[in-house]
């Protein structure tokens, strides 16, 4: 049975991970996600878990590599500049097919950018941020409840497919508080980790190499890459998820994720109260992206307004899905209400744009 709690996004991330059975966290402080790291520093020792504050995001990602190779549920959390630093190791995690979860609480970029919210890591996260051409599953919560629930889904998908799963949040989502249901979610069984590194004495003599140089030895490099991409294809086929809102009869669809999706929902309500046929499609999986859902809507004659707190990244995927590019409009970071780091894209601004388009 669940428990009703009024908690912040950062605590929802933590409680979601604990409900998924994650007892290993390795992190490095960076704003605006320090409360996630602090949550695990507080909670894990009480549960016979392990918390280490590493000396950099490269190191915390390496700890995650090791713990994932040893078969436990493990995660780290960071914000955009730290996400950048992790990419080297995440590419190795991808090649070694190690199941683990990384939370990226997006802040403004590039460079140090700002310490506040933004959505400027979309492309980096969905294209496999590091070198070598790989994919990670990317989940995007838009509420404190989804922070909690998608953390659990992230661990499940990571184990099911032996893949890195990224939870792409933002500075606002992590810092707001909402009433949520806190409870373990059962997604079904996952394959046993009989490959985990623990010494051959505990595995009846079986030995495993989890090594990033496996491309050097048979079965040749090309086969490994093809197998990886076969797996990515399967994930795209079975694990694409969207949330729709007032989308059935909509002529104009708002496409967004994260905190902006909440603003879009409000804008849809404003439009509906004036009788305008406006709806919303919120991708829950940013990769795999719901191309087919959007394709279908486009073939029914819908138009699309992409709303995102960047200069245009999500819009690239929408344009890939919709053949007639003229049907896709963008409302981006330039529509923030303030020029400084506190600027946000408000529902009123979105509604104004909707009025212009419809």
């Amino acid at each position, binding site marked *: 049975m669940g428990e009703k709690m009024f908690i912040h996004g950062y605590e929802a991330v933590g409680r979601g991970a604990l409900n998924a059975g994650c007892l290993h966290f390795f992190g490095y402080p960076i704003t605006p996600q320090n409360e996630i790291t602090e949550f695990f520093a507080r909670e894990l020792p009480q549960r016979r878990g392990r918390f280490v504050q590493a000396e950099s995001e490269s190191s915390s990602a390496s700890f995650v590599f090791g713990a994932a190779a040893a078969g436990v549920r493990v995660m780290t959390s960071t914000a955009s500049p730290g996400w950048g630093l992790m990419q*080297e190791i995440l590419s190795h995690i991808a090649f070694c097919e190690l199941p683990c979860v990384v939370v990226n609480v997006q802040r403004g970029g590039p460079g140090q950018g700002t310490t506040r919210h933004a959505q400027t890591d979309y492309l980096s996260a969905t294209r496999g941020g590091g070198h070598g051409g790989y994919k990670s599953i990317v989940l995007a919560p838009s509420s404190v409840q989804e922070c909690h629930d998608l953390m659990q889904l992230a661990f499940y998908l990571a184990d099911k497919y032996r893949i890195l799963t990224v939870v792409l949040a933002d500075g606002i989502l992590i810092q707001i508080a909402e009433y949520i249901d806190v409870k373990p979610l059962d997604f079904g069984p996952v394959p046993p980790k009989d490959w985990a590194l623990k010494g051959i*004495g505990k595995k009846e003599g079986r*030995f495993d190499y989890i090594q990033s140089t496996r491309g050097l030895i048979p079965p040749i490099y090309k086969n490994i890459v093809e197998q990886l991409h076969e797996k990515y294809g399967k994930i795209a086929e079975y694990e694409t998820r969207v949330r729709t809102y007032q989308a059935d009869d909509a002529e104009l669809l708002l496409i967004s994720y994260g905190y902006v999706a909440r603003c879009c929902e409000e804008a849809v309500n404003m439009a509906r109260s004036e009788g305008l046929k406006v709806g919303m499609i919120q991708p829950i999986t940013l990769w795999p992206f719901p191309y087919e859902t959007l394709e279908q809507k486009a073939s029914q004659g819908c138009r699309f307004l992409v709303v995102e707190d960047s200069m245009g990244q999500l819009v690239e995927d929408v344009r890939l899905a919709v053949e007639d590019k003229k049907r896709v409009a963008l409302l981006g970071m330039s529509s923030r209400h303030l020029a400084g780091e506190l600027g946000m894209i408000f529902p009123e601004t979105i509604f104004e744009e909707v009025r212009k388009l419809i």
Partner: protein
Amino acid sequence: MNDKAGSVHKEKIYGPSDYKMDFPLPSCPGCGSPSACKIIVEALEELGLIQNSVVVIGVGCAGMGFFGTKMDMAMCAHGPSPSVAAGIKHANYDDVTVFTVQGDGDCAAIGAGYLINSAARGDKITIFMFNNTNYGTTGGQMAPTTLLGQVTTTTPQGRDGMAHGYPLHVPEMLATMKGVAYSARGSIHNFAHYQRTKKYVKSALQKQTAGIGLSFVEILTACPVNWRMEPIKAIRWIEEEVTGEYPLGEFKNADSLD
């Protein structure tokens, strides 16, 4: 030895480890790394630890001797092996012996930040650094351990301290750190030193199983191909030149960190 009724009694006195498969060695002729790996495997067997051990190899020639060994093995990026090893240790709730096998470039250049912080934390792992005074895998470039005056492909006139920096003495440096339980440097250029180095390796592993702190052993290894020397000359060069810069022995041997 002839037993009764003419049957021959055979007893294995010395030979390849039971944990070693017939696997082609990826090393150059005269390379010291496989012998140094062999010392570690022998030490693990003699201490009864091998079945409960995980090896983490760095990027480079050093750990290649572990290919074809019947052990759990991880290999990540260039440098972070200490963090990977500590992650494995935590995930097993300390019930495993974890050690890294890294080259001098992996451990002391690109991995120096990981190494120092792992030592400062006193991670309960063992680090073996093979020092062949150059980047062997990539064709013989300067390493942090390259001797002054030594010619490499990136110091064609010889390493000049003012221009290229000075040789790094890792076990001496680690010996000054509180989180380190054991720090030593050995060589394998003759059998006496081979045996002495094996003793260091065993002591380092025992520090880990006793849960005291981080333990570290540097092993000097020959790299005849990149040194442009015949193997026998390379071994002599270690004895005459390399040990001059890098003295052998134990630098720290602590029974507790406090």
